[in-house]
């Protein structure tokens, strides 16, 4: 394998990882506040749909250069709206959080396709739009291998990497982060200290909707260009895996997301190796999933979820 393909492979890795990074960061906000979010898949679906539709209408109205960013904004808004349903059910009405997350997945799958058919006269997918194009960072992108690999990417990828650091700082170095984590670890103690538990949890869940929405948007705006029934097919669940894999830590989740992206990229490039011809393609497809299990078994060990995860907060039980 020559160096050029190595650079390409790095690049593909980042393209595949971006959506997972966003969604996993979203999951961290929600789960650190104590609310399970199985609904990431649905929230990504909302985002992917909103980005495709918002981008399409923006393009239609003549805002060609701004269209993808308008799509991202729509995805953020619609993702938050979807998350609001989860928040109302699981925080205010103390519904089982797993169940209410599953509801999000159902509502998203149903309503996005229903709306696509309604808006585009029965078509199964949204019209193709121009998404983001890759933006090479001056100077840095000229470095061999690493340059085309890391510094010639979609703007969303740069944003994702910046946000990993921002979210890490927010969670572990600011009072807001301390409160959010306190609410997820020991809500009654946080309450005693004057933190509004339910409000913090609302913030956590809404942020998860926003981030997962952007995650979904990156898929339509960088890879597919349209939204259809199979645009989001399991990425949300992989993001959940990345979040757990990364022990609810933004840096860990970033690593896990890149790992998933990398193993997907391997799948695309493994055909270039001569020896891979003798391996059935199905086994190559299995690589990311089997590797995850092996890594989990050998290295990571017991997971450390926030201790109040999944429990509705009831002040009367304090």
């Amino acid at each position: 394998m020559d160096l050029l393909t190595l650079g390409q492979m790095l690049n593909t890795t980042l393209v595949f990882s971006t959506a997972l990074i966003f969604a996993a960061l979203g999951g961290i906000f929600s789960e650190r506040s104590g609310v399970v979010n199985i609904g990431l898949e649905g929230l990504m679906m909302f985002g992917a749909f909103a980005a495709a539709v918002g981008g399409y209408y923006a393009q239609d109205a003549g805002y060609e250069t701004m269209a993808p960013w308008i799509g991202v904004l729509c995805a953020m808004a619609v993702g938050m709206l979807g998350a609001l349903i989860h928040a109302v059910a699981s925080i205010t009405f103390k519904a089982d959080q797993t169940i209410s997350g599953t509801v999000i997945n159902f509502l998203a799958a149903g309503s996005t396709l229903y709306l696509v058919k309604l808006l585009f006269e029965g078509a199964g997918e949204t019209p193709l739009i121009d998404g983001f194009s890759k933006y090479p960072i001056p100077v840095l992108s000229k470095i061999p291998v690493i340059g085309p690999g890391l510094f010639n990417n979609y703007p969303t990828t740069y944003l994702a990497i910046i946000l990993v650091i921002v979210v890490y700082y927010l969670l572990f170095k600011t009072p807001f982060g301390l409160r959010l984590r306190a609410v997820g670890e020991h809500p009654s103690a946080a309450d005693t200290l004057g933190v509004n538990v339910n409000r913090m949890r609302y913030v956590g869940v809404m942020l998860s909707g926003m981030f997962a929405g952007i995650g979904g948007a990156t898929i339509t705006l960088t890879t597919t260009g349209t939204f259809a029934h199979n645009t989001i097919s399991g990425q949300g669940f992989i993001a959940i895996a990345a979040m757990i894999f990364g022990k609810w830590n933004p840096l860990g989740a970033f690593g896990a997301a890149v790992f998933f992206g990398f193993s997907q990229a391997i799948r695309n490039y493994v055909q270039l190796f001569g020896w891979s011809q003798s391996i059935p393609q199905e086994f190559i497809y299995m690589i990311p999933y089997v590797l995850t299990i092996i890594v989990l078994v050998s290295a990571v060990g017991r997971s450390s979820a926030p201790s109040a995860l999944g429990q509705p907060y009831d002040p009367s039980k304090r």
Partner: protein
Amino acid sequence: MYKLKKIFATDSYIVPLVAILLGFLVGAAVMLIGGYDPIAAYGALFKRVFGSAYDFGEAIREMTPLMLTGLSVAFAFRSGMFNIGADGQVLIGMTAASVIGIKLAGLPAFLLVPLAVIGAGLFGGMWAGIAGYLKAKRGINEVITTIMLNWVALYLANYIVRTFLLIPGQNRSEDIPASMSLTFLNSIFDNARLHWGTVIALAAAVFFYIYLWKTKQGFEMRAVGLNSHAAEYAGMNVRRNVMKSMFIAGVFAGLAGAGEVLGVFHYQSVLAASPGYGFDGIAVALLGLTHPFGVILAAILYGMLTYGSAGMSFNADVPPELIRIVIGSIIFFIAAQGIVRWVLKPFYFKRKKEKVL
């Protein structure tokens, strides 16, 4: 009589019924906003299900795998685990049934069919057992492992079908000679593909009920599900229970796979994506409040709605995806019972007043 009164007096039956009603209302509202006629759409839905003997039989066929995957998810839930992997377990069950059905085709049907069904159940159980084992021995979150195992199952099944069972030049396996169709019922229902899987599913629900609520092992399993620390302190073997529970959950899902292969299609295709039985099973388990008999009722509702939704798009031109909004809303209202109770409040108030008078 007293017992009957008591059943109807508790709101555990009223809440799901009101939730279903509210779900349909949400669906109707969404249709009205979209400019469709909800009455025509729901009419078309029910006409599709009950319109002909064939369609009714096919609707029952559609419910069958949902019952089993629903039971699978619910069973794991009862012992504190979230089985997102029923999909993969179904696929492994399907593949096991196909391999046995095709490779041992020389055996008489009365031997071959039970062998294939048992094989499907066992392999489904072992597949789920991997996640159970990793959870018990290594503390690895079963949500991740079952998600990963779904994908591995998809590709493994494709590999096995493609390499060992394929008809040359086609994307599907050979036909399996023996079938588990319910011959006498098939003819009544105009050749609808009813099969023994439905009977197996009902039996599985009864097993589920008796095992969890009438045996010591089931008591332990529920205890582990409610509070694993307390169960451990009481001297129960949490790890063994975790593995056992995942195994049984996988058996249920594997049996669903056997039903689909031996009862419905009689062959297995190379699949581009996973069939989604497991995710529907999650919804069914939640709709059924993770109680075995609730799961059966939920599967009936779910199967009816999904089968009928095709008629809805055909006759009333409403996108069939709408039905997912209805199902999602029903689960939402069941989960967030506070909303339902709030809706019901005026009625309760009335009843109490009557008592005073």
